[in-house]
């Protein structure tokens, strides 16, 4: 396989993994309105957990002086299952701490803080996940049996397959009454409660579903790259994901997928292919700047994203309805940060 083909397969792999992260964040933020500014932490949990499930115990790994917990030496798919399960358990603990009485804006701040605190902890406490360097030497599934090119193609296919299954399940959920409840929760939590639905249950369901995608994405990352360190889950990563979801269209599965594709593959990868006469170290910074500008332009010109959210369709719509096409375009859903006006919802306990 030529270098170009390796590159293309790698693009497919990362495209699928970024798509997974985008639909997971869309489930939490786009559908249910949870401002999870610590999404990348969930991805990291999936990656680390899969990593320590795959490699052998510290000292027996033939990797020198790495220090980490676990080391089960499990093969695929058990290492991936462990990674996803660990992410869901972690997300569950996070929700039971952070969701108590916290509304949108406070929850967002709490999650940012928890994310930063964990990053510092993992960086400095080297005996958990080997500190800043992180975990290395994670074997990919069937890597030893396959030729290099066959393994690359297998991983690309595996990532696409997992993305397809995950997206299909999310699509079914979002069209069901549960999906309607997610959107209702995003609009007004107290109102959802006043209709006899438990908002905490709905919110946790959306959060854990998003965590499953994060766990799968993290797991795929570590199995493909072979390692995972703190460089992979800096807070900025979450904001690029938010940008992708907003760009594509929050609250719509295909929007999140399109946003991830446009932002990561077209803008970020595309710009690195251009022959820009800049010092190589500057390119990432220029790219970040570019992401910010793209996001601003989208929020300005198309606040609901490239593929705006659908209005729910019901069979046998009334023929006399006034919801004509023109009106629907004229009135896109409220822009991204609409849920921040939650002062009216503050209750005194």
């Amino acid at each position, binding site marked *: 396989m030529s270098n170009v083909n390796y590159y293309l397969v790698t693009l497919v792999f990362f495209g699928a993994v970024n798509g997974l992260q985008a639909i997971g964040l869309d489930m939490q933020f786009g559908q249910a309105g949870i401002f999870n500014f610590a999404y990348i932490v969930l991805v990291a949990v999936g990656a680390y957990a899969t990593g320590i499930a795959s490699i052998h115990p510290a000292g027996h790994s033939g990797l020198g002086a790495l220090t980490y917990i676990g080391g089960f030496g499990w093969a695929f798919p058990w290492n991936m299952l462990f990674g996803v399960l660990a992410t869901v358990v972690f997300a569950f603990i996070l929700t039971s701490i952070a969701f108590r009485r916290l509304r949108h804006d406070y929850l967002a701040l709490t999650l940012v803080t928890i994310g930063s605190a964990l990053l510092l902890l993992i960086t400095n406490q080297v005996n958990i996940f080997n500190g800043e360097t992180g975990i290395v030497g994670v074997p990919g599934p069937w890597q030893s049996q396959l030729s290099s090119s066959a393994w690359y193609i297998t991983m690309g296919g595996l990532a696409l397959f997992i993305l397809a299954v995950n997206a299909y399940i999310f699509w079914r959920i979002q069209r069901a009454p549960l999906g309607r409840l997610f959107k209702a929760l995003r609009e007004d939590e107290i109102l959802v409660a*006043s*209709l006899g639905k438990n908002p905490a249950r709905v919110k946790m369901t959306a959060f854990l579903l998003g965590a499953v995608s994060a766990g799968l994405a993290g797991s795929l990352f570590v199995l493909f790259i072979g390692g995972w360190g703190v460089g992979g889950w800096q807070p900025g990563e979450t904001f690029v994901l938010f940008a992708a979801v907003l760009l594509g269209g929050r609250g719509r599965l295909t929007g999140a997928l399109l946003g991830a594709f446009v932002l990561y593959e077209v803008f970020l990868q595309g710009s690195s292919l251009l022959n820009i006469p800049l010092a190589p170290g500057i390119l990432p910074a220029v790219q970040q700047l570019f992401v910010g500008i793209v996001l601003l332009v989208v929020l300005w010109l198309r606040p609901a994203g490239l593929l705006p959210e659908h209005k729910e369709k019901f069979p046998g719509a009334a023929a006399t309805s006034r919801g004509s096409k023109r009106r629907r375009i004229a009135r896109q859903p409220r822009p991204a940060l609409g849920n921040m006006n939650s002062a009216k919802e503050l209750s005194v306990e």
Partner: protein
Amino acid sequence: MSSNEVLPQGSIRVENLSKSFGGVSAVSDVSLSVPAGTFYGIIGPNGSGKSTLLDCISGVHTSYGGRVHFEDTDISGMALHKIASLGMLRTFQVSRLFENMSVLSNVMVAAPEQEGEGLFSAISGSWRKSQAGHLTRARSLIDHYELTRVEEAYASELSGGQRRLLELARLLMMRPRAVLLDEPFAGVSPVNRARLLKQLHSFSEAGITVLMVEHRLELVEELCDKVGVMAEGKIIAEGAMSDLRQDRAVLSAYLGEFHKDALRM
């Protein structure tokens, strides 16, 4: 909607309810009883604790003194969603709708014990079978409230009166036995007021117990079997509206000494 769907139950009993915010007493020692199927009105000047009382009964506030019973159940301190699922619902002073959802979706959200709200039934798609029944009911309620024309419009596109009607349609979707209405006529034009009044009358005819906070005395008089007057967190008088008009304490609390004529509109 046919009235025999709702059973004549839904009594509300409040005993010695007190609520204070950081030492400031909002409601103090309020007791009242709303027998099943009756219409009870609460009037009183701004800041007299009417909305706080409703918030405590409905479970928006869960820490307060005293006890609240709904039918035979002690619901003191129970959360809003639990009380709502028992069959006692509320509306809010400022109308609350899911603004970025269609009128029909707003009503469909409220379908009680809807299949497909759980994770597994949502994925399996087993909810589709029961959806048709909910949809028929939602459309008939929307029709009853004369909202069919705007069924697919976003809730944010409705007028003040239509918003109130949609709130009631959503309420009835859940087959309540008791409802708490917080100023249901706020923001409703005079034309729509008559429509809304007619609809609220039909609540009584359907046997639904109603506890309503309202400012406009002529509406309270027309709708309510019994009226409680609140001032400074207490119920200072209770009775038929026609009797309360003569009550000196009520007059001075509600309008000040010099405006008693205003009560005889």
